[in-house]
């Protein structure tokens, strides 16, 4: 292997939600403090010698001025090297991948990867929904976030007989898990009937098929393998990662029953880690909408193409299922503070692989957890990271 092994020695996040009482900077400071506090043998903040910050848009369509300097200043480390990573919804996953490469290459030693996103300082209309008027004046006019995934649901339902109940079962499962995650935005269980009866947002997706708008931040600390035991006796290792791109616009998709970038990123991550989907114990995947998780579990190889719906309805992805997916509650219940999402998913994998997930703890037979995000206009980018507790 041509890269140095990388250990995750700390990870933490703040309680996700509509954090009207916290600024972008305060959320970043909170997440960094949580990661520092999670290090078993203690961690001095000034050990950080570089940081990578994932922020997709700060406060959506408003705080475009966020750069590499914002977070170091907010966490008391102004002066350290720091770069902002923006890569759509996988920004956090990709910051983790880039941070791991910085350590693996030997360029940096102790690296902070932190994701921060302020979604709710702007109203829904002026924030997330204003993208209806952004982009191409004709070919994307009216294209809010659900429009990027609902056409996949329409087509998946037509080709594979996927039903609204199957979609709803994803939301029900993730809310069940979220009700057991103290960091989740929503901590209440819901029923299939509630999902079906919720208001239509973008046919065929209804309100409870959609993730909320959430403020949040999460952070992880990476070190080279040889320094891991300074910080913990139970490190988690980076086993592999992959990133892939596809055309950005919906009309450029060759298929509306798969997310091609997810499939390509997964192939690369599995090859690098030397494992296959059957060796993954649990996965945190991108469930911005219920259909997205159904596509994910197919494209990541957990179930056959077309079986994502029935597999979800039958409990294969539940906490006690064959392949537990989104044990944290996922984007649907834990929330989707875009830049923070991937880093928060890594934190859940870290807890699961260390046996620290409490009520949500699953059995780690093979010692591998997978984390995934897809996004960008028309799911044009996907990132897969694979972690392991096997030394």
């Amino acid at each position, binding site marked *: 292997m041509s890269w140095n092994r990388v250990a995750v020695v700390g990870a933490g996040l703040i309680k996700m939600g509509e954090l009207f009482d916290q600024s972008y900077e305060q959320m970043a400071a909170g997440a960094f403090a949580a990661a520092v506090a999670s290090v078993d043998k203690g961690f001095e903040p000034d050990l950080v010698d570089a940081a990578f910050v994932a922020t997709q848009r700060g406060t959506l369509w408003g705080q475009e001025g966020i750069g590499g300097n914002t977070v170091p200043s907010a966490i008391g480390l102004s002066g350290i090297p720091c770069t902002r990573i923006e890569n759509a919804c996988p920004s956090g996953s990709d910051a983790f991948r880039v941070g791991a490469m910085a350590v693996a290459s030997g360029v940096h030693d102790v690296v902070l990867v932190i994701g921060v996103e302020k979604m709710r300082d702007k109203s*829904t*209309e*002026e924030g997330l*929904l*204003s993208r*209806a*008027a*952004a*982009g*191409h*004046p*004709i*070919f*994307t*006019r*009216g*294209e*809010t976030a*659900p*429009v990027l995934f*609902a*056409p*996949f649901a*329409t*087509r998946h339902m*037509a080709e594979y007989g996927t039903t609204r109940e199957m979609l709803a079962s994803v939301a029900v499962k993730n809310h069940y898990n979220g009700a057991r995650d103290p960091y989740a935005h929503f901590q209440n269980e819901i029923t299939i009937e509630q999902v079906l009866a919720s*208001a*239509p*947002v*973008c*046919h*065929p997706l209804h309100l409870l098929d959609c993730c909320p708008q959430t403020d949040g931040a999460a952070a992880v600390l990476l070190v080279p393998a040889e320094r891991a035991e300074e910080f913990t006796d139970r490190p988690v290792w980076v086993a592999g990662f992959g990133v892939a791109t596809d*055309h950005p*616009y*919906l*009309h*450029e*998709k*060759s298929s*509306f029953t798969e997310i091609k970038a997810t499939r390509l990123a997964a192939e690369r991550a599995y090859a690098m880690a030397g494992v296959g989907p059957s060796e993954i114990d649990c996965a945190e995947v991108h469930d911005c909408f219920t259909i997205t998780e159904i596509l994910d579990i197919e494209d990541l190889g957990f179930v056959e193409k077309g079986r994502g719906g029935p597999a979800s309805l039958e409990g294969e992805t539940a906490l006690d299922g064959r392949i537990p997916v989104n044990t944290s509650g996922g984007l649907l219940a834990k929330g989707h503070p875009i830049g923070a999402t991937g880093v928060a998913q890594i934190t859940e994998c870290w807890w699961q692989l260390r046996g620290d997930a409490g009520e949500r703890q699953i059995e780690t037979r093979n010692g591998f957890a997978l984390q995934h995000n897809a996004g960008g206009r028309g799911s044009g980018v996907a990132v897969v990271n694979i972690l392991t507790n096997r030394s």
Partner: protein
Amino acid sequence: MNARIVAVGAAAPMFRLPAAAVAEAWGRGGGRGQAALCAPDEDTLTLAWEAGSRALEAAGLDANVVDGLWWGTTRPPFAEGPSHSFLAGALGLAAESGGALLSGSTHSGIDALAAAADAIAAGSARIALVIASDALRPGLGTGAESRSGAGAAAIVLSAEGGAGSIGARITRHHPVVDRYRGDADTETRDLYDGRLFREEIFLPIATAVIEPLATLEPRAWSLPDPDGRLGATLAKRAGSTTPPSASVYAELGDTGAAAALLGAIGSLDAAGTIGIVAYGGGRATGVAIHADRPVPGATSVARVLSEGSEITYTAALRARGQLVAGGETIPMGVPPESAMFVRGADEMLGLLGGRCVDCGTISTPPSIHPHCVACGGPKLEPVALARHGLVHTYVVNYTMPAPFVAPLPLAVLDLDDGARLMLQVVGDGEELAIGRAMRLVLRRYSYERGVPVYGFKAKSIAMEEGSV
């Protein structure tokens, strides 16, 4: 040399407002008939495009052979601005084509026909496209409100060939104030005094052009009917029974600058002479047109005009922009005056794609695709996209900020030439299904700082034919 008539086309907007609904809204009883009304994404330019496209199709002509576009309308989308070049671009006319935009009164429709015929007679144009279109906007509660309609008529003229010809022409004018709209007005002002208008202005000058035309013994007439009664009076003076134009008024109401031609082109379905009388702004013009045999496009006029669904008065106010939600709207990310619209003008209005010379795949739009989406090849040649296709997948968006109005259906379409596009869909999306056959129509996507933004939308063919 008389200009020859090659083909005709018509267009009507999506909505019909019953006069009874207007009467009820203002606490009056009664109300007979109906008027046509534009959907929020239709206007005089989209109607003109529809009629012009149909006429060219009926003529079997490519848009790029047209030497000029003569367009008459009282309400060009820009009071001052690129109205004519937008319509020419959307129709796909050659960059070197000419013509003129005629406006100022409802007489402008016949002005367009006369100017085009003169250009052909003078030899400065060989093929001319004449379009008369309008979408009137009356004052609320005025007598004209229940009759103010919308529609468009188009005629392709040529120096030779064709199935008919433009004949004699006679004009009278009288400088008086009839219906008008001042610079500061958004709505047309109604007549000052109906009887004064009738006795001193309209009947004298309309009669003066009818009498010489009547000597040609037209087999049918298109006569102006600005108040719902004067048309019948004119018909008597023309020695005619109910003229065919009356049925167009009954279907669409007063279509302003489009009325004279719309009332005539359906009658070109058989050989004979048609007498056309146009009135507006203190001017009356009579034109005789002759069909040697049925003119292509004429038989479908009645069907085209009969399409349309009834709406309520409140929906009509919203459609006309007279009932507007308060609060802020989200501005378009790209201002309509900016560089993207300069780069993208042809591909948006003319609907272009880039065909890969290596693998044949069409990438759309060309300005964002220097390389092919399928093989990555760097050589793409511009091609006009097919205007028909099938729905591959779709959504209906219910959750958008103002100025968007839900439900907004969007469909990914596989066009007949293999290109894939995502476009907004006309209507509420109820009829959408995978595999549904669609055609592309020009619509107004938005109004941005007073600037209309036009582009193509998908429309269900089955919906148009009334089978859904």
